[in-house]
């Protein structure tokens, strides 16, 4: 599902200034151009995660950047594992 800026802000319950600050920090990476940003469900879930870390767990802003970076590496590796499983499964044995 493709969301424009307004839809994203209301779905994620996020303010304009917070969005700008989080994009600056690279916590969020919108698609499209600066004038016509577009988002999707993954960004909404990411906002929820950031909020859980910040408010729920009391992680400070420096910590959040570190966690997001490590988490994205972890997901990159998980994706690679899933792809590898497919390659191993379909490869001729021997």
């Amino acid at each position: 599902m493709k969301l424009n800026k307004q839809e994203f802000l209301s779905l994620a319950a996020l303010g304009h200034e917070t969005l700008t600050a989080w994009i600056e920090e690279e916590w969020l990476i919108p698609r499209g151009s600066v004038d016509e940003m577009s988002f999707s469900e993954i960004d909404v879930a990411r906002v929820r995660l950031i909020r859980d870390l910040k408010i729920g767990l009391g992680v400070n802003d420096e910590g959040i950047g570190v966690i997001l970076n490590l988490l994205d590496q972890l997901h990159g590796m998980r994706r690679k594992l899933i792809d590898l499983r497919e390659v191993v499964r379909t490869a001729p044995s021997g």
Partner: protein
Amino acid sequence: MKDPYEVLGVARTASAEDLQKAYRKLAKKLHPDLNPGDAEAEEKFKEIAGAYDVVGDAEKRKRFDNGEIDAAGAERPRQSYYRDYASSEENHPYRNNSGFADFMDSEDGFAELLRRSARAQANRRGHDIEYRLPIEFIESIAGTNKRLTLPDGGTLDVTIPPGIVEGQVLRLRGKGAPGSGEGGSGDALIEVEIKADPSFKRQGDDIYLELPITLTEAVLGARIRVPTPTGAVTMAVPKCSNTGTVLRLRGKGAPRHAGGYGDQLVKLKVMLPKEPDPELETFVSGWESGKTYNPREEVAT
């Protein structure tokens, strides 16, 4: 619902700070996004988050302690987590491969596997896309051409072969989502839904039709026009045809899988005139054998 203090492992007298500390300690371990591979993390986290929703809020905690609310109201609805999207095969801007980039550069068999999976990913076939297409009964027997309007505004021309049955899926190769690289597009899968027809019913390859005829046609016999899904045909109604008599129109049914056609079976239904008819009444009252015939002989009374 368990006692929220028990869930968080604190005494009922614990301070707000202690409660928060206990919650954070558990949440750090159990948050689903900090445990991407633990399918049960969500259930466990829901429990502690629900408990903290109640006793982590001073006002709610007071009401809970006074027995005004119970912990059941704290059930959190199912929500999606970042982990539900982050490992998916769809491309997103947060993808980060630096965790294993160095493995790719070596010369061993494992690196070769990694590179092969990267190639496979670059040339992934597009997804199949499913559609539902409602058609008229007559179209299902005779076949037709349909144009589907797609969500993105494009169109898709579909040829419905004659004799298609409910739920049959037509596969249009390469009409699904585009793939990446040389992966090629997926297929469009079109599930056909046949609308019910007020007159025709299908059973196997045969088609059933109930056809009203007049008293005159029933008694004297006649040649009448009968609708079939492929157009009207002439049928001979023999003399003395009764309600319930079934006449067979060979080859006027649905196309058979193995070739040829099923039959259309026409069940007659004798209809008296809609309005009372004095002439008919006079005739019937003078009709002697009509008074002795008992059609209910075999019906238990």
